């Protein structure tokens, strides 16, 4: 769990991924602060910060006395956010590398099509 970004952001992203791939369904109880802390071997305050980030983004909702639950519509919210970030996170570095090694945009598009066809189903 060490790649430069703050630990609580990584915790939040991990919960997000579970929501995105459906392993944590909408309406389901999300892992508690203490469960996350013990599992990832981190201070509970750090885990709480990650959870709070998701509450702020309306991915999780707090139910008093019961814990944290995945909000209705959370999956779609996350997908929309990820689509927005897609260009920045994947296309910009890819195009930078392509330019660096002398690949034209057209070639890159061709490569993408080829790759997509080879995709294991």
């Amino acid at each position, binding site marked *: 769990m060490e790649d430069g970004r*703050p630990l609580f952001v990584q915790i939040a992203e991990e919960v997000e991924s579970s929501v995105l791939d459906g392993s944590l369904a909408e309406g389901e109880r999300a892992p508690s602060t203490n469960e996350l*802390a013990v599992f990832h071997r981190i*201070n*509970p*305050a*750090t885990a709480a910060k990650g959870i709070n980030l998701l509450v702020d983004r309306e991915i999780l909702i707090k139910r008093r006395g019961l814990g944290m639950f995945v909000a209705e519509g959370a999956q779609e919210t996350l997908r929309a956010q990820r689509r927005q970030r897609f260009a920045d996170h994947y296309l910009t570095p890819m195009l930078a590398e392509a330019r660096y090694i002398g690949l034209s945009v057209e070639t890159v598009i061709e490569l993408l099509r080829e790759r997509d066809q080879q995709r294991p189903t």
Partner: protein
Amino acid sequence: MSYDTTGTAAQVRGVTRRYRSATALDDVTVGFQQDMIHGLLGRNGAGKTSLMSIVTGQDWPSEGEVDVFGQRPHENEQVLPRICFVREDQRYIDDAKASHAFNAAALAFPNWDWGLAERLISDFNLPQKTRIKKMSKGQRSAVAVIIGLASRADITFFDEPYMGLDAVARQTFYDRLLQDYAEHPRTIVLSSHLIDEIAHLIENVVLIDSGRVLLTEPVEQLRGRAVTLVGRADAVREITADREVLSRESLGRMERTTVLGALTETEQRRMVELDVDVVPVSLQQLVVHLTTRDPQSGDQEVAR
């Protein structure tokens, strides 16, 4: 989050501790917030043990004052049962077995939990019938660690008792500590010079060096204090031009530079363009930087 963020469990004000010729603590003022895990970090001989001995009422300051839960701990029957201090060189009565030490601790600490103690005894595979004097270093450390955890004292100081444990047993200690802390929040102070091992467990850092407190700061904030950039030398130099450089290394046309301060968004974008990578600065590296800086140039800036 139910963690109390207002109360101070222990407060030290202007404490100096002199031994015959040496000054172990020099005008130390520091507070340990309640229900947090604190890391008391510093090099060997920095004054960690002296500070903990004084806060726990086992040693007297030459000057200054100490409060634990609002009272002087020294010879104070009301506060001492709420304080647990386990140290690496913990001494026991001659011929005592582990069971004797645990029975004594159960009497001394009102929150003592036998269930937890027994789980830990089996986790650490501790022989109960062996005299502590005859135990291996690791087993003696386990006795100390079990007392520290099972006492469930309102404030517990661990003065590197885990140093005698091997890597597997240390991980067991860290795991059990976190589990029990999550269920029973209380104030914990871990002293260590193996900083990276405890970096994720602690919420707050107290860094001492040569008997002085260099800083008291939440870990998260401390981590943001510096970044390391790796990339082509000209690119790295462009981004770090106006920054205070902590260290700089180069290999051919590559350079690795650690600078103070977080990166701005503009800088981050420029880094992507110039193909410069950010490498996290570990807490250990940061502490090394902060405790080995030239005192003339760096000290005031760091101590603030």
